């Protein structure tokens, strides 16, 4: 490989000459310090390189060496519970090696080379296998059985497959292929910018259950779907991302902290080992992989971090798992693209972003999906991608938001006005949408309650009516409304405060099962119907508003999951109180 020489340095962009053999997107080592970079432009033998580490102190004339490989991740047992930087260097190992600060030029392998994993084969010698076929399994954590698959490009007959303890680079067996017998080890590499192959994409028809009422009941995302969360700062994007990472019923969670706060990653690191998965009772960390490029870490690595994360996600999807990838925030990724593009002196598109912004975003979200994986067993895997977007000033006409909305099928619109009122999650019920509603209806009817989709529609209608009525109230006051309309306002407020409002920091309220969600929504609507009925019998609206049972409805969400049936009992109280009210009213009359 030819050695090039640096001729120019400007921020994270380095230009080198004499790179005759280099290919686009090759990984290079810059200067004696061996900083990692990637070729992003070639003109003759001049290569423009984005460098993933700080470039201070570099000078012209220093060497640049191409590795001949594109930017890849290492895939093998040992990834779960790790925290990586944007180019898959484990931050734990970096700390052991160089201390509390990240210095540059540290070279650490992504996967521990010395650890021995107990491998149990599930295939046997003589089997004919192709890419994606399962060879065996490793208990990586109590929650994750790491399935070892035949690497891409290898096809043939298993000659040998051994049980025992192996490091990721040791041979676990041999496969006789068309080009001779090949040793198989657990470690695979995959270039991050290329989607991993699968057999077929399927329509996503199962919801990703998150335990967040406004999401599951009103704007659900499916397993294998895509969602975006745009919102101004302080509207709670990160809290929602954390809530989803905690409670979503995925087998694997990949959390990409892209250009966000260091303390947020620390929070996840400290909280997840303590939190228990509501289904298995095991610490949530045992199914989580983190990729962290905090806002003060080198900007070029930010661009790589989302690809690193999603490629790891695809690898677990290929094993047949349901993966959720959270990227917080994709705006920082787009800004990193913009910065590099600016330094390359490319012609800018909207707001200075490169013209290929939309393409890159679409490519990223299209990597989500429910698929039939490679391999002969027809197993299904799904990867859900949820990206938050941080538009400047909360302005949704921002190019990143717009490009994302074109491809993501769920839109959770965060509003700072709601956040100011401390209505969390601050997801606007009027502006948000989910395009999966119809596809998921079957599931909800089957698994939760026949009436669920209809109750949802009624609740949405009430909220929409409330918004219209509010405009009237602003002009003429609430007293001018008819009792029926005032009841709509009362019920809509109850839906907002007693159902949609959910406190992430309350032990009970932080997660609500679908069954409980249905009961909560149902009770509010039962109350509404009963009150409307009472109105026709002449009950005054003020009295109906002041019923004691409303307090119980308000507190119903704090009922623990083990006692959800108690919620149904409120119905009897509603009946009793209304009956009593009507009685006293008759006497008064």
């Amino acid at each position, binding site marked *: 490989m030819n050695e090039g020489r640096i001729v120019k*340095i400007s921020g994270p962009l380095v230009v080198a000459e004499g790179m005759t053999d280099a290919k686009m997107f090759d990984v290079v080592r810059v200067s004696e310090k061996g900083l990692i970079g990637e070729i992003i432009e070639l003109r003759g033998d001049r290569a423009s390189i984005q460098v993933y580490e700080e470039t201070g102190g570099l*000078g012209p004339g220093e060497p640049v060496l191409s590795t001949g490989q594109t930017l890849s991740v290492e895939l093998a047992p040992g990834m779960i519970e790790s925290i990586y930087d944007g180019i898959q260097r484990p931050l734990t190992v970096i700390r052991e090696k160089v201390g509390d600060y990240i210095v540059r030029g540290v070279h650490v392998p992504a996967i521990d080379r010395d650890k021995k994993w107990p491998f149990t084969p599930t295939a046997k010698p003589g089997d004919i296998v192709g890419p994606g076929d399962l060879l065996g399994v490793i208990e990586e954590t109590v929650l994750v059985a790491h399935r070892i698959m035949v690497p891409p490009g290898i096809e043939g007959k298993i000659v040998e497959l051994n049980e025992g303890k192996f490091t990721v680079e040791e041979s676990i067996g041999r496969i006789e292929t068309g080009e001779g017998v090949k040793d198989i080890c657990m470690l695979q590499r995959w270039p991050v910018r290329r989607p991993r192959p699968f057999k077929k994409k399927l329509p996503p028809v199962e919801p990703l259950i998150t335990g967040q009422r406004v999401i599951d009941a009103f704007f659900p995302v499916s397993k294998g779907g895509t969602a975006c969360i745009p919102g101004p700062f302080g509207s709670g994007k990160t809290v929602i991302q954390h809530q989803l990472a905690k409670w979503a019923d995925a087998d694997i969670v990949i959390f990409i902290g892209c250009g966000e706060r260091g303390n947020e990653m*620390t929070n996840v690191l400290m909280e997840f080992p303590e939190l228990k998965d509501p289904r298995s009772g095991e610490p949530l960390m045992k199914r989580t992989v983190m990729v962290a490029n905090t806002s*003060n870490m080198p900007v070029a690595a930010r661009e790589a971090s989302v690809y690193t994360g999603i490629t790891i996600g695809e690898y677990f999807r290929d094993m047949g798992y349901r993966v959720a990838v959270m990227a917080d925030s994709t705006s*920082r990724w787009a800004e990193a693209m913009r910065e590099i593009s*600016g330094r390359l002196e490319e012609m800018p598109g909207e707001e200075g972003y490169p013209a290929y912004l939309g393409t890159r975003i679409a490519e990223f979200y299209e990597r989500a999906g429910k698929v039939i994986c490679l391999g002969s067993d027809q197993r299904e895997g799904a990867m859900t991608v949820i990206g938050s977007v941080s538009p400047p000033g909360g302005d949704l006409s921002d190019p990143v938001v717009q490009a994302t909305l074109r491809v993501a099928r769920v839109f959770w619109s965060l509003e700072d006005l709601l956040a100011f009122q401390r209505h969390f999650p601050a997801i606007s019920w009027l502006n948000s949408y989910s395009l999966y509603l119809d596809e998921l209806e079957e599931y909800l009817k089957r698994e939760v309650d026949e009436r669920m989709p209809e109750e949802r529609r009624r609740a949405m209608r009430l909220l929409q009516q409330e918004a219209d009525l509010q405009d009237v109230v602003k002009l003429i006051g609430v007293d001018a409304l008819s009792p029926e309309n005032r009841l709509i306002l009362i019920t809509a407020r109850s839906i907002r405060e*007693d159902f949609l409002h959910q406190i992430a920091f309350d032990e009970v309220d932080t997660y609500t099962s679908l069954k409980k969600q249905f009961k909560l929504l149902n009770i509010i609507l039962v109350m509404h119907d009963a009150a409307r009925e009472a109105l026709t019998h002449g009950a005054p609206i003020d009295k109906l508003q002041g019923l004691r049972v409303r307090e119980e409805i308000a*507190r119903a969400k704090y009922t623990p999951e083990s006692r959800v049936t108690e919620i149904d009992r409120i119905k009897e109280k509603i009946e009793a109180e209304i009956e009593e009210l009507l009685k006293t009213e008759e006497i008064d009359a």
Partner: protein
Amino acid sequence: MLKEYLTIKDIIGPLVLVEEVEGARYEELVELELANGETRQGKVLVVETGRALVQLFEGSTGVDVSRSRVRFLGRGIELGVSPDMLGRIFDGLGRPQDEGPRILPEKRVDINGSPINPYARNYPSEFIQTGVSSIDGLNTLVRGQKLPIFSGSGLPHNRLAAQIARQAKVLGVEEEFAVVFGAMGITFEEANYFTDEFRRTGALARAVLFLNLANDPAIERIATPRMALTTAEYLAFDLGMHVLVILTDMTNYCEALREISAARKEIPGRRGFPGYLYTDLATIYERAGRIKDKKGSITQIPVLTMPDDDKTHPIPDLTGYITEGQIVLNRQLHKKGIQPPVDVLPSLSRLKDKGIGEGKTREDQADLFNQLFAAYARGKEAQELAVILGETALSEIDRLYYNFADTFEQRYVSQGEDEDRSIEQTLELGWELLAVLPTSELKRVRQVWLDKYLSKYRKEDSATPQKDGI
């Protein structure tokens, strides 16, 4: 002997292009000697084979093409740090400004610092009592947090910052603390206010001041916050102190950054600010925090004035995306005589949940502040409604909220510069104010806390919650 270059080709704004250069390095410190012997400092912005683009910190006035000499010093911009810096005043580039002796550095540190490994961070969770109700009660500050003050020109942000610096303490412990103050482009009077405050309260002995005033070179401001934070890191993580860093005014800093970007003819982002403003600000704000197994901490309070009080302006906007919340000051409140004029609704402390509750402040605080926020928001809504419809058109309950919002501003938010409220006082005041609302409205508070804390503020007639109110 360092090589001297007489090969300046272009001078554009604060930028100088030097040719026929050998061995210059990116971000290297540069010294430029004028014909009259005066020296200026700068750093390398872009380096190509044989050419280097240098940014001068003190501007290019008086620099000429033919006689000025350029030396490349072979190292980045460093600051010599030492415990003797406490009690001293420096200029924006770290040169002593007071009459004190020269600082003999213990070590020299690159002012750009290095990113803290997220894995090495310790999550901020220690409650800092600032004695200001609107902060302690609603937007709690914790050690290691970065909580900016979003202000506007003419608002008393400096008074609030000084009050916090004066009153801040961690309950129940006596530990070594220090204040590092970085001034960027503020006026002499403002700087004087701080130095006088520090002197008056005896805080100066525990403080390090870096002053770049309005008439100092704008470009020097790029280095000032980094000087301050480098000192803070030394005090916190080498000497184990708890450091409060006040940076004022970040708006001036950002404008200096824009000036350089424009001189480099970069493609501008929003409002002419460079596309990398976010990253650049992050390298300042992210230097707050705590590190595992280290005693000290860095808490940052950057102050910025929002141009035209516009929160969506790129400077407050990008700051808000990096910092852990914001304290927003409001002009209407200021005119109403509320001091400090903290607008609590858009204010936020993201880290408060870890710093409050049992064992930190008090068990009821989380519910209490949620309720206060909700009630105040409703009250503000009622007030808006009343503007259109007239007060008489409000329902009984809305009128209660209407009045609540007023008393809340006058008694809870407003407290004056010298009042140092304990967290107990703040919490009790919250309950006292809530007592005017009927129980059925207090949905955000658990029953236990209502019984325990609210009952003593209830008048007898509110025993039956149904009757008051509706």
